[in-house]
């Protein structure tokens, strides 16, 4: 066996044992999964503020979330909405994995989340006070609420997790990079990593920041606004939330008889503007890391940004690596909206539930798919699923891929 094989062998050491979903499609993994299979959308007119004067009026809001019911009261005025969602998700994920942090060594529990927006709503409120009333009116908690690592820090403090902590900001790809970093930590001294992440930027400041990319859909009808891989694609709908995931070593998960699935492979890459895409290379590297041939992948959860040109690049990359139409591809994220740092973790949760139940959720709304890929449309598709590939491409050039497998693979 050569050293590369030894390294790849270590790749099968991470299992996701807990899911904490908080998205427009549901406040738990099961609620989210039920909504996807029913094709039930969480997209609607933005209600957190009046969007009538903005070119984008739709969003995937987590309407059932009430901070006063789901977050310790002390933390509500000290943290942003995006952190509130993650604190709730972390609590649910830990309970789902039946983890009692107080019973574990504090320095062996790590926290690595993904965040691409930071605390925009909190920040907007404080900026309004700064410009409206003066510097003395900016609250002390702005210093800790806005920045990307705030969610990781608050989860770490709340659950007494004093192992390595970090945050990854790579837009949509960051959620998969967080998984990659969690795997590195599990190979070291950490026995448990709280990972995944959320984002929540459906405030005027957050929305305007997103508009600058030109990738948001301006269509106002929820069922027509986000149609990736469709010839009518017009951009994507932004959403809020994501998923917090508990990652443990395979040996620990096996001993407890728990786990949704293994992380078999991970790779990341970067695309320079005006240069050929590196996406096929990233996909192949993830497959190599998992020691799988393309034919070993049973379903692909695509990035599916909904921009015709970018969708074409992704479809071509999938066709190049897997062969045209050789693997089912889906993007149920059209029901929750695109969640930035929280998006790929939610896709990971969805893919794990898909592996568990042997069913591929469909991509509702697409009626005129682009060529080259077998897009699962109209209804969920039953299939024998052993492995799944999750693809993420972040604005700015980031890309990443994760290969998941059933715990018995």
């Amino acid at each position, binding site marked *: 066996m050569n050293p590369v094989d030894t390294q790849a062998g270590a790749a099968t050491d991470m299992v996701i044992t807990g899911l904490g979903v908080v998205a427009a499609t549901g406040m738990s993994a099961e609620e989210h999964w039920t909504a996807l299979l029913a094709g039930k959308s969480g997209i609607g007119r933005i209600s957190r503020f009046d969007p009538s004067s903005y070119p984008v009026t739709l969003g995937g809001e987590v309407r059932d979330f009430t901070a006063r019911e789901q977050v*310790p*009261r*002390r*933390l*509500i*005025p*000290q943290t942003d909405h995006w952190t509130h969602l993650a604190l709730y998700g972390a609590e649910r994920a830990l309970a789902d994995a039946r983890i009692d942090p107080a019973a574990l060594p504090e320095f062996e529990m790590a926290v690595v989340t993904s965040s691409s927006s930071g605390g925009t709503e909190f920040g907007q409120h404080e900026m309004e006070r700064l410009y409206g009333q003066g510097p*003395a*009116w*900016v*609250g*002390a*908690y702005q*210093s*800790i609420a806005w920045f990307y690592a705030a969610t990781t820090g608050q989860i770490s403090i709340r659950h007494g997790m004093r192992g390595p902590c970090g945050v990854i900001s790579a837009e949509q790809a960051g959620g998969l990079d967080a998984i990659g970093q969690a795997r590195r930590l599990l190979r070291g001294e950490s026995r448990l990593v709280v990972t995944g992440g959320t984002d929540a930027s459906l405030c005027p400041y957050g929305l305007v920041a997103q508009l600058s990319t030109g990738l948001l859909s301006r269509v106002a009808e929820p069922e027509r606004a986000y149609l990736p891989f469709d010839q009518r694609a017009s951009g994507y709908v932004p959403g809020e939330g994501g998923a917090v995931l508990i990652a443990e070593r395979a040996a620990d998960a096996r001993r407890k008889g728990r786990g949704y699935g293994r992380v078999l492979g991970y790779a990341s890459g970067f695309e320079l503007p005006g240069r050929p895409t590196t996406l096929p290379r990233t996909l192949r590297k993830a497959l190599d890391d998992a020691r799988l041939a393309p034919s070993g992948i049973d379903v692909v959860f695509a990035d599916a940004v909904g921009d015709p040109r970018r969708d074409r690049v992704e479809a071509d990359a999938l066709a190049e690596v897997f062969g045209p139409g050789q693997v089912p591809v889906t993007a149920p994220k059209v029901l929750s909206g695109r969640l930035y740092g929280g998006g790929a973790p939610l896709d990971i949760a969805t893919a794990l539930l898909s592996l568990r139940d042997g069913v591929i959720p469909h991509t509702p709304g697409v009626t005129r798919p682009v060529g080259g890929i077998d897009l699962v449309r109209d209804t969920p598709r039953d299939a024998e699923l052993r492995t799944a590939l999750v693809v993420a491409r972040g604005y700015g050039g980031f890309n990443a891929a994760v290969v998941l497998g059933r715990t018995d693979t």
Partner: protein
Amino acid sequence: MAAFTLQDLQRLTAVANDEDYLKDITEEGLDVELADLGFDSLALLDLIGRVQREYEVDLPDDAVGTMKTPRDFLDFVNDRISESAEA
């Protein structure tokens, strides 16, 4: 300007303490360490901000380092109020 009293401090703390994590500041507890009452450095900065805004008195950020107890807090604010009255 009027003096900054224990009642003022109690009222402002109550506003900041909607979450009910700070212990009550009492006459008997004027010499208890603020940290033991639940104030970390940010909670103290937050309280200083509220005093500055409501009483229109300048309190430097590094004041946090000199305030160990509620009595220190009252003394510090009142010294600043006297200074600005003399100026």
